[in-house]
């Protein structure tokens, strides 16, 4: 259940390294209980933003509040579980000892270690040294460390990196479970399918700025209908006369109509009524990945204008 009270609030948050603005005036609100997707290409400013949320990096300017206090506040950190830019553990310690070390740092009982290892499916390899783990196992241990404190807010930066397909599915289910338990989850990922399945709202960051924020449905936008209809000129005129049709264009002999899904029947009815023969109707939905590339692929756009 998503509450209305904000868990994370960023206002004009900026981080500059010399002249380079890694994060440039970011405004963002994440509400309690949300599973929130944070998307962006490499170097867009995702990890820097997440590090600022955890107090690892100080912002150059702007305001941030996490769980109602400034980022890095020790009391707030004890209510946040995080995995940022890959797991950082000691290669000479076992998985279990690494988590015990973190438990000591967090001031939580060592008895929390076992359930955290179980939750990520690593209990049977917990006695092996971290240095011998595969990338996927290291990633799981990172998520286990994030769960040690029974956190209200979970921040996961690319948690499925290095996981095999089964591991990715397990991780997805784990994140969905975290959301169901009422925890707020901020998930940064390159895997659009994953975000589309898991997240309720997303923000896309590019070159340090938030370029789009909204629900997954809002970002994916209206459905497109692909119609094969003759005569096409009559069809186009008929469609353009309909108030609920946003856009009509012709591509490879098909009419592409941008419209809400609930209007499909009305469109075919209007065309038939106008004497147009409709021989094919196909609904196409934009994937989050398409939206992401539209928002973040600069070189392609620039080339297309040449």
């Amino acid at each position, binding site marked *: 259940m998503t509450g209305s009270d904000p868990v994370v609030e960023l206002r004009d948050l900026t981080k500059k390294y010399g002249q380079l603005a890694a994060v440039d005036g970011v405004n963002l609100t994440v509400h309690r209980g949300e599973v929130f997707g944070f998307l962006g290409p490499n170097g867009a400013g995702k990890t820097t933003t997440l590090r600022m949320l955890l107090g690892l990096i100080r912002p150059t300017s702007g305001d941030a509040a996490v769980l109602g206090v400034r980022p890095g506040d020790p009391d707030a950190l004890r209510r946040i579980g995080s995995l940022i830019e890959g797991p*950082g553990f000691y290669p000479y310690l076992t998985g279990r000892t690494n988590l015990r070390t973190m438990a*000591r740092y967090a001031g939580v009982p060592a008895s929390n270690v076992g359930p955290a290892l179980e939750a990520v499916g690593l209990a049977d390899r917990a006695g092996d040294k971290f240095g011998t783990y595969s990338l996927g196992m290291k990633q799981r241990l*990172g998520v286990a460390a994030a769960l*040690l404190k029974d956190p209200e807010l979970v921040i996961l930066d690319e948690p499925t990196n290095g996981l095999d397909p089964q591991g990715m599915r397990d991780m997805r289910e784990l994140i969905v479970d975290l959301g169901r338990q009422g925890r707020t989850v901020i998930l940064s990922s390159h895997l659009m399918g994953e975000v589309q399945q898991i997240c309720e709202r997303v923000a896309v960051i590019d070159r340090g700025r938030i370029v789009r924020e909204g629900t997954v449905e809002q970002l994916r936008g209206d459905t497109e209908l692909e119609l094969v209809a003759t005569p096409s000129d009559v069809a186009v005129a008929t469609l353009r006369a309909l108030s609920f049709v946003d856009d009509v264009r012709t591509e490879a002999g098909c009419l592409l109509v941008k419209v809400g899904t609930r209007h499909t029947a009305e469109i075919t009815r209007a065309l038939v009524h106008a004497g147009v023969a409709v021989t094919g109707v196909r609904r196409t939905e934009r994937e989050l990945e398409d939206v992401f590339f539209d928002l973040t692929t600069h070189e392609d756009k620039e080339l297309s204008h040449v």
Partner: protein
Amino acid sequence: MSDLVNVTRAELAKLVRRPAAWVLLAAAITLDQVFGFVIPYLSYKNGSGGAMTDGESPAQLLAGTLPAQVITNTTAAFPVFAGALALVLGALVAGNEFTGGTLKTLLTQGPRRASVFGGQLLALVTAVGVGVLALFLTCAASALGIALVEDQAVGWPSIGDLAAGLGSGWLVMAMWASLGAVFGVVLRSVALPIGLGVVWILGIENLISAVARTSLTALQPLRDLLPGVSSGSLISSVLPVQIGPLPPGVQSTVSGERGLATVAAYAVVAALTVVVVGRRRDVSA
């Protein structure tokens, strides 16, 4: 306060399991044993001194390995060679947290940064203290063994002398370890701090001392403030009456009190630097 205790406990548990810590301890013990006992004793058994023993008589060589000289044999390497090993340990403990990406994991668990860096330092100086004790015990065992084998009287230093010797030794080693930690935190790496630190201890300090002693005496006030010179003077002041020549780096360039004050000041400044720099640093790795 509980943060500091939790962090120190966690860091001690880490140090105990850290192979590098044991390798460094083994190296320090080997240094002490080889130069404090093996070479002098073998030379004594051969009935000759030679270059390695600075022309000491066989009787002097044997006397130098007996329990009465255990403080000398334990602490003589601290100002230079064992000090370099302590510096390596400090740089490893502090610098590895940056290069291994573990610092972000530690800091996001919730303790205050001052507790994290303060706890790491406390664990480091505690480990150094345990190391000093281990060095003393191995030296004492060797000295006792030689005394028994050679049918010599077993006369240990007084408790007061032992406490002063080991306490001073611990302070010197803690200072070097803390300076290693400073390099680790400031440079956020391991290799460069170790390289710079070892070059400083083994090379630059000796160069400055030599230049100040011979060609540029105006440098003597600066020389007298150097950590190696100060620790050599401190150790020199707590050693019993010397039978042979003093080991390298152990000489009373300044008074023992001044050496103690300078070494303590370095240790305190190093600890404060680690905490202050650590608190302010962006953790971006």
